[in-house]
């Protein structure tokens, strides 16, 4: 692990002091762990001033039984320099909540719905936060580690 701070790290730290909680950079794999409440501001800074126009992906990971349990992972890319930056938010809440990135990227709409559907992370101010892959009647969030893999909730047909 390198202790070298990289330029994006310094820029974020300067604008929002204390918002970067941890970081590592190894073999070009640059990751920041930030305060979830600041993610919208940080993403806006990345997009408008640091050239990360592209939200490549947005996902969540369940690290049960680790504490903090959940991580929301954002992958950003600068299309001019081809630089990539991974930003993570950690949470130990049963239903983590972070601000939605839909004001910055329309694609965040679907990605956040998918994360809500499968992992149960709430995105504040999302315009349409409802299930996208599963059906409305489904209970729970099946990609969580404590959801049984074969926990079927059939709409029709025999229950098993």
């Amino acid at each position, binding site marked *: 692990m390198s202790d070298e701070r990289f330029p994006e790290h310094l820029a974020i730290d300067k604008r929002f002091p204390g918002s970067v909680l941890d970081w590592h950079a190894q073999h070009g794999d640059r990751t920041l762990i930030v305060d979830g409440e600041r993610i919208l501001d940080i993403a806006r800074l990345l997009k408008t001033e640091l050239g990360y126009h592209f939200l490549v992906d947005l996902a969540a990971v369940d690290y049960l039984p680790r504490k903090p349990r959940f991580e929301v992972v954002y992958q950003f890319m600068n299309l001019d320099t081809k630089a990539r930056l991974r930003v993570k938010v950690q949470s130990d809440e049963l239903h983590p909540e972070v601000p939605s990135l839909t004001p910055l990227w329309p694609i965040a709409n679907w990605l956040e719905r998918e994360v809500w559907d499968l992992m149960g992370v709430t995105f504040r101010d999302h315009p349409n936060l409802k299930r996208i*892959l*599963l*059906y409305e009647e489904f209970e729970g969030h*099946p990609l969580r580690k404590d*959801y*049984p*893999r*074969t*926990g*079927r*909730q*059939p*709409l*029709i*047909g*025999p229950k*098993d």
Partner: protein
Amino acid sequence: MLTTNGQSPDPGAALQGQVFTTRFDKLLGWARKYSLFQYPFVTACCGMEFMSTACSHYDIDRFGAAFPRFSPRQSDVLWVVGTVSQKLAPLLKTVYDQMADPKYVIAFGACASCGGPYDDYSTLQGIDLIIPVDIYIAGCPPRPEAVLDGLLKLQTLIQDSKQEWGS
């Protein structure tokens, strides 16, 4: 009827080689087995195999099963090709219910037959949990030869089953 010279003709001789007799239900079965209108309910990778079977190299036309109809009321064999999720299951059931009798169902590949590799929270573990199936085609995916074999088996089944008509 009399011939011009006033003698009655020998019906056997006059019709020699021009007619043959059969039973009506056999004729109907023969007609039905060679005029299949298929509804391809294609969801996943098996769909590629269905397409290659339908294309010129394997040419499903030769078996009298040429026209895909994406209109359930005008089709009589439902091909369920690929993975069916719990979310999709009600739609599959609706399509089946809307088809007119007589109707047949082919479960194409492991996913449609038994859920295939997906023993999980979201996949229907075989379409026979919601609709009746006439032919199962094994494989993940099945080769076109297996698909044609399944089609021939369905045609034998149609020919040999009791033919119902009218109401």
